[in-house]
């Protein structure tokens, strides 16, 4: 494979990983800090994308659309946490799955009522559109580079928040021992609402960023949700660092698997066959990665051993 193509594919893997990280970061915080399985995380991603599409259509501004996605995600998160999720912290994981699955159905049908069944338009803004030429003469879309940049910025901001602020100390403490921290006078339920809203806002942001290069439609969140779960299982539940490394691993494995496996197989069989079998193997590669990591480290790369 020519170097230029290889570099382009590595960037593609990096970008896929960064997008996944935005989803997985919120999911792993909620899972780690509150012990809650939130299947409706993908619905918050969809809410962000629809809010962005609606605001972009009304104002024509992409930055306002991104702000709207963050706000809509956070608001939807706060409402959902206070109305439904709050009642689930002490319940069994099965009850949590049941209730948040119901939320998926409610969000999907609600969105259909408001916006209809046809996909919405959300375009890359003119100032981010088109490819730029990287050193070495490699053309690469500016928008995808921007996503990589935003992902890195979010990763650094989250790290600072968790490691360097008082709120971060409380979040870490809540993760370790929720009785103790509430005994020490921290308003645990407000902390939980905050963490949930933060995760939801990140999901909303991811939805808006991805919506501009994919399709904004009902049900767009669920496929991403499954991958985000794979990411946090690989990275270790509750670990932001794990979510970042896990997301990059999954993004890289998926992208490189998709291009390398069919061409590897093409050396031993005919092209059509290689394309078909290679594609099937590639779609499994992420799950094989997860299985391998779990055999090696049962609680994930950065998970606390239980």
């Amino acid at each position, binding site marked *: 494979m020519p170097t230029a193509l290889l570099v382009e594919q590595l960037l593609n893997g990096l970008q896929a990983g960064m997008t996944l990280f935005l989803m997985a970061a919120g999911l792993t915080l909620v899972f780690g800090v509150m012990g809650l399985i939130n299947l409706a995380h993908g619905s918050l991603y969809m809410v962000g994308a629809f809010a962005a599409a609606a605001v972009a259509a009304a104002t024509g501004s992409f930055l306002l659309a991104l702000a709207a996605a963050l706000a809509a995600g956070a608001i939807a998160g706060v409402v959902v946490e206070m109305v439904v999720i709050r009642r689930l912290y002490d319940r069994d994981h099965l009850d949590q799955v049941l209730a948040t*699955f119901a939320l998926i159905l409610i969000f999907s049908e609600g969105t259909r009522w408001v916006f209809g069944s046809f996909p919405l338009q959300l375009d890359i803004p003119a100032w981010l559109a088109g490819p730029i030429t990287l050193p070495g003469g490699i053309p690469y879309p500016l928008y995808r580079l921007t996503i990589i940049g935003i992902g890195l910025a979010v990763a650094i901001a989250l790290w600072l928040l968790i490691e360097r602020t008082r709120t971060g100390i409380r979040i870490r403490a809540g993760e370790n021992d929720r009785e103790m921290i509430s005994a020490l006078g921290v308003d645990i339920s407000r902390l939980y609402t905050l963490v949930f809203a933060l995760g939801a806002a990140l999901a909303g942001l991811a939805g808006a960023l991805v919506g501009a*290069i994919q399709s904004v439609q009902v049900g767009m969140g669920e496929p991403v949700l499954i991958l985000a779960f794979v990411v946090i299982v690989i990275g270790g539940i509750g670990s932001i660092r794990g979510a970042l490394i896990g997301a990059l691993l999954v993004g890289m494995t998926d992208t490189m698997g*998709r291009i390398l496996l069919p061409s590897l197989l093409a050396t031993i069989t005919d092209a059509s066959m290689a394309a078909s079998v290679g594609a099937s193997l590639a779609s499994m590669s992420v799950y094989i990665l997860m299985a391998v990591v779990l055999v090696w480290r049962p609680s994930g790369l950065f998970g606390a051993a239980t």
Partner: protein
Amino acid sequence: MTPRTFILAAAMAALPSLALADAHAGKVKVGMITTLSGGGAGLGIDVRDGFLLANKESGDRLDVVVEDDQRKPDIAVQLADKMIQSEKVDVMTGIIFSNLAMAVVPAAVAQGKFYLSPNAGPSALAGKGCHEDYFNVAWQNDNLHEAAGAYANKAGYRKSFILAPNYPAGKDALTGYKREFAGDVEGEVFTKLGQKDYAAEIAQIRASKADSVFFFLPGGMGISFLKQYADSGVDIPVIGPAFSFDQSILQAVGEAALGVRNTSQWNKDLDNAANAAFVEAFQAEYDRLPSLYASQGYDTARLLISAMDAADVGDRDAFRAALEAAKFDSVRGDFAFGPNHHPVQNIYVREVVKEGDVFTNKLIDVVLKDHADVYAADCKM
């Protein structure tokens, strides 16, 4: 999180929505199972709206029961059982997706129901698995892809990069394209069904020496591909079947689709009286432009109503002969059934244009005249 948790989540299927209609004497009772929720809902809604518009124009001669299959084969099968056993429908229709059609159609015709397909046309039901009571009013799945291959020859393309999702209809698509395309296949890629990011594939296209790209990526997959392709700066021309350029999704693709040539058996500017009336009535009724799927739903209902004029649905042989005759003014112009009850029709190439603020298609040329499918020879009924 335990495996049990995941299994529970996966096993929870939503309850089918109910839309019961009263039984009226002297009408033909139609059971429509179509996709009205989930990712593919836009297609089913258009088929339903086109069908119901034709029924309304006829003075409600059909008694239509509509149900949502949620794009799930098991739910489609349950709904079909209910329609056949308790609703006692005479005719069934509506299914959008080929895998659902394979689950429902053979059982329905075996239980003595007529089935008129407004969309799905799997090869298995066109060849050896054909049935005298099964009629496809849209196309055999391969047809539009064959037309794309034929168009690529006309346009002078010699080397194509081709891609489709890794599932039966995707494989049929690439087979159909290669059947007519006379040039070389420069690259062949199967993507994951439902995949939304095509950066890796687009990089391969950029690195290839192809002079054309053929893709079959229906629904949201196509929207994603086209937006990313336009943004990547790759300028190799793209061709595809109408499914990724249809009225229902073009607005979401936006500028990225402008100028792309795509193949279809119908377009809103096809010059015939039935079509002009249909396009006008559909816009008046629903306040949006009709899609390919709406035209197929409309033709399906009009075919059925034309058969009711000629025969009683209780007289099965006469009714079947009336359906075969297809004596209705199709919005596609000339329309006839081949020996396997699949359409013999013209297939056109269209170009995506912008009319005012609306993205839509303009008819360019006929690609395949009176085209029939290759499976008809295997059909013995």
